[in-house]
């Protein structure tokens, strides 16, 4: 629900900015680890991912200039501006006739204000994960089927409360309400070596713990990976061993899985736990 509110508020703000300044052709927001937070209607997710990927090298060496505050790319037909707002990067693409002062006034006031407001209302979604509208997970129907049951269950629960309290407990336990899987956007890194199994990916132990917490300590052994082109696969998952990749929003993936998904190192994928 929080994600929905965030998504709606930010997406509306981005779309509204484009209404106010028609010379803004594209806007989106991403995190330093490459995770895309939200984009306007005009910008495909794949384009956002390509932009983030293009600046990977710049962000890697940004320490040398005291981290990125702003990047401006000035072309003959338009401009791209990337501004840092707290831990987020706000991208605006403008046509060549755009009044940059006006654009900056609107974007640099409106977006920070909305982000501050959202942070005050509920800080969790921006800290945790992407709030891009998720593609419908395959397990959703099953979940809905499960969530349809509880209504009569709650009624009987009230009735049986005095007479058979033990039975009620077992009924609830047998049909738990599983929360919707939390999706993470991760950047693909190669996973090789003689001992590396070809059916297992590695992701941050923090993400695994988050999922395990979400599902009350259930061990996450499989995840579903989806590309921005809509290709998806299931595979086993283990925590990242190499400290170099920890906490960077990456997913280490064997070549075989990369081939299956038709992706390569540096591209973004969505990952969510498989709960059965």
């Amino acid at each position: 629900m929080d994600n929905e509110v965030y998504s709606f508020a930010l997406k509306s703000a981005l779309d509204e900015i484009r209404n106010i300044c028609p010379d803004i052709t594209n806007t989106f927001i991403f995190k330093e680890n490459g995770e895309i937070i939200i984009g306007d209607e005009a910008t495909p997710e794949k384009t956002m991912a390509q932009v983030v990927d293009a600046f990977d090298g710049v962000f890697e060496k940004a320490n040398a200039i005291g981290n990125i505050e702003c990047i401006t790319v000035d072309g003959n037909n338009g401009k791209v501006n990337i501004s840092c707002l707290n831990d987020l990067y706000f991208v605006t693409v403008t046509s060549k006739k755009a009044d940059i002062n006006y654009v900056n006034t609107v974007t640099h006031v409106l977006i920070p204000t909305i982000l501050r407001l959202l942070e005050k209302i509920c800080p969790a979604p921006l800290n945790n994960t992407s709030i891009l509208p998720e593609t419908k997970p395959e397990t959703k129907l099953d979940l809905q089927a499960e969530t349809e049951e509880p209504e009569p269950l709650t009624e009987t629960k009230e009735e049986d409360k005095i007479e058979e309290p033990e039975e009620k407990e077992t009924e609830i336990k047998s049909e738990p309400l599983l929360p919707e899987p939390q999706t993470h956007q991760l950047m693909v890194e190669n996973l090789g070596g003689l001992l590396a199994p070809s059916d297992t990916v590695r992701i941050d132990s923090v993400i695994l713990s988050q999922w395990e917490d979400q599902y009350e300590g259930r061990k996450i052994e499989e995840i579903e990976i989806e590309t921005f082109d809509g290709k998806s696969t299931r595979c086993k998952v283990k925590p990242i061993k190499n400290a170099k990749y920890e906490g960077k929003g990456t997913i280490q993936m064997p070549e075989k899985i990369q081939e299956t998904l038709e992706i390569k190192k540096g591209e973004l994928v969505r990952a969510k736990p498989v709960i059965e």
Partner: protein
Amino acid sequence: MVKKKKDSQEITTLTEPIATEEAISTNDLRTNLEEIKTWDGVIGYILRNTTSAAIDLNDPTKIIDYAILSSSALEASEELSKLFNLGKIKNIIVEGKETKVLSLTVGENRISIFLEKQADYEKILKKLQ
């Protein structure tokens, strides 16, 4: 024997003007950059083309980081140009909390100038374009 000599002269005559033009262009740029380097707030520059590179930075320990950063920025700008149809890239400015980098391409030369946060890059752009 005489014929061989003639051939070699012809080749020399053909290649010389092109080499000279390139040299002049790059040399001019380098002269301009050396002048810019003396301006207030300018930390240094990197000038690269297909055959040579010139680097002048106040802090030599940062050469590698600055070189990777500037080439990444130029490559990223080319990618952005393709994605958003920006046309020819005039320049790219990467601003950090301490330093900013102005990168641009002049002919076949890729230039990156490193500036202190408050330095004015407009004046530099005028000088180089």
